[in-house]
């Protein structure tokens, strides 16, 4: 075990898996130096700025026996490849009746707080959740990043790993064990509590933990649940927590409209046992439904944070 950054956790997962499996290769505009050095330019490819072709080629190579990793770098650039993602990758296994497997890892940075304005501050994972046919992970710690990425690389399907720009330098304990993985589809209770469940995603897991500290001073015990995987979502863990606490606040850096937060609210309220346990309406604490603006004053106004999460909790507890 050693302290590693979130970015290092992800990179370590890739390097370890590439050492074991020669069919894995990596494509991105600009090669990652450490990977290039270790594995050479045959397996670590700097591509032209052609995300659409790169994504399509990954599908073809995957269907032909390889396990490509495509690093779009920012989710922003994945939009250039939308046909290959939406019309091809997400449907190809199903449409062709499961004849061959398409093991692909797509990596994409998400989130704001970087003062990079609307195009470079997006958290559009729910657009991809909507597709059926893509698994989606969204780690919040270095440990989770490593464990989930290793599972994603070993998975026989296209998996998108959304990685939080804000967390790249965040450090925690990461196991060195080569066989350490975290299963796709398992949520994690990041803090146990009894009065309210805060389901939080990525960077907001940390804000939710900070909110829980604030609330604890007032004698409020918050449980923080991190889904970690968006598709498939771990309904059971989330529902079990809400059944215990009777209150649910959902925190997401994305906007609320058709977001992952809406999906989580639905899975909580659609289930009779969980619905009956609710003592107040579900509350979402999300970004405002606007493109992300540049100026710090504007950007900070748009994003949720620990204070807004704490306020959301107080609101549901008052009801």
């Amino acid at each position: 075990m050693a302290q590693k950054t979130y970015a290092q956790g992800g990179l370590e997962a890739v390097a370890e898996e590439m050492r074991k499996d020669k069919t894995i290769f990596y494509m991105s505009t600009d090669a990652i130096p450490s990977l290039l050095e270790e594995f050479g330019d045959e397996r670590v490819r700097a591509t032209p700025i052609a995300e659409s072709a790169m994504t399509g080629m990954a599908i073809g190579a995957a269907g032909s026996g390889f396990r490509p990793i495509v690093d779009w770098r920012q989710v922003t650039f994945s939009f250039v490849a939308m046909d290959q993602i939406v019309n091809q990758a997400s449907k190809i296994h199903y449409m062709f009746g499961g004849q061959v497997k398409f093991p692909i890892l797509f990596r994409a940075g998400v989130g704001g707080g970087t003062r990079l304005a609307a195009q470079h501050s997006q958290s559009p994972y729910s657009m991809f959740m909507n597709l059926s046919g893509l698994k989606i992970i969204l780690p919040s710690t270095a440990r989770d990043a490593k464990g989930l990425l290793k599972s994603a690389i070993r998975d026989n399907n296209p998996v998108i790993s959304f990685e939080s720009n804000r967390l790249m330098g965040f450090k925690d304990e990461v196991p060195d064990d080569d066989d350490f993985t975290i299963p796709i589809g398992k949520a994690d209770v990041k803090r146990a509590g009894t009065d309210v469940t805060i389901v939080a995603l990525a960077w907001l897991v940390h804000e939710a933990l900070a909110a829980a500290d604030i609330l604890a001073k007032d004698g409020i015990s918050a449980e923080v649940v991190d889904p970690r995987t968006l598709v498939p979502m771990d309904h059971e863990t989330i529902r079990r927590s809400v059944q215990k606490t009777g209150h649910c606040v959902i925190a997401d850096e994305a906007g609320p409209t058709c977001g992952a937060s809406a999906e989580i609210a639905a899975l909580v309220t659609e289930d009779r046992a969980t619905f009956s346990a609710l003592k107040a309406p579900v509350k979402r604490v999300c970004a405002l439904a606007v493109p992300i603006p540049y100026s710090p004053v504007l950007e900070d106004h748009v994003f949720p944070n620990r204070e807004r999460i704490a306020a959301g909790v107080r609101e549901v507890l008052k009801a």
Partner: protein
Amino acid sequence: MLRLMQTIRRFEERASADYLAGKIYGVVHCYIGEEAVAVGVCGALNRDDQIISTHRGHGHCIAKGADLNRMMAELYGRETGYCKGKGGSMHSADFGVGMLGANGIVAGGISIVTGAGLAAQMEGKKRVAVSFFGDGASNAGPFHESLNIAASWKLPMIYVCENNLYAAQTSAQATHAMKDVAGRAAGYGIPGVIVDGNDIFAVHEATVKAVERARAGDGPTLIECKTYRWRAHTERPGQPDYRPKEEIEAWKKSDPIQRLVNHLKGQQGQFSDDEWKKMDEEVLAAIERSVAFSEASAFPKPQAALEDIFAD
């Protein structure tokens, strides 16, 4: 022309310094070393001709005639900025002078400005439209799709490739099957011209020709300007720059501004050291005023984040 080029350089120097000082946020991509391209091209255009830019957009904005105060205020995130603080460096724009915007998406602007060319053609007003883009962008779909359409429809377009030999950390050598981007014009049946992008006269002359052709209804031209960026891809500290030192130094010897100064001085008595010094001081004073304007401007009100999502 010299004044504009020097304005771009001094603006970039200030933007970089103020970015490092934390007064400008996010990211800044400097245009230093490539000034002759923007100024040479825009010098051949009318005010109502339209251009579109890239992530490295300050130079194009200045060359097309945008106001330094409002440009700097945008970088400073103030409400007096061109985008009211919503856009920042990567979205420098002044639609009023026909500058349709910098863009965070490589090649994202090429088809948009081709649409401006289509509008010009449909209106029949003899306007032209210019797409600035990098060597990296020339490998992306919108470049190829747009050139083909523009060539087929004889749109009044000028495609200006700023080939500075690199796309971020990746050299063009590694990603281009053919050394010259201009060579691709043959595939679309349009002229492909290569010019020394650090020679303002060469850039200007090639553009004048392309503009004539476009206004005459004969369709687009692809101009490839061979140039070089002096600074790293962005101004972010600690960012890698794998380019050979000797290569950077060699290109600095071909400074487009110094070359123009030398040329002007060479024409006896036309331009003295004192005049050059005075011009630079005036340029610096204008930049200084833009900073003062920005600092005196208010930040937007937080609630302004909810404005401008839709037009009225």
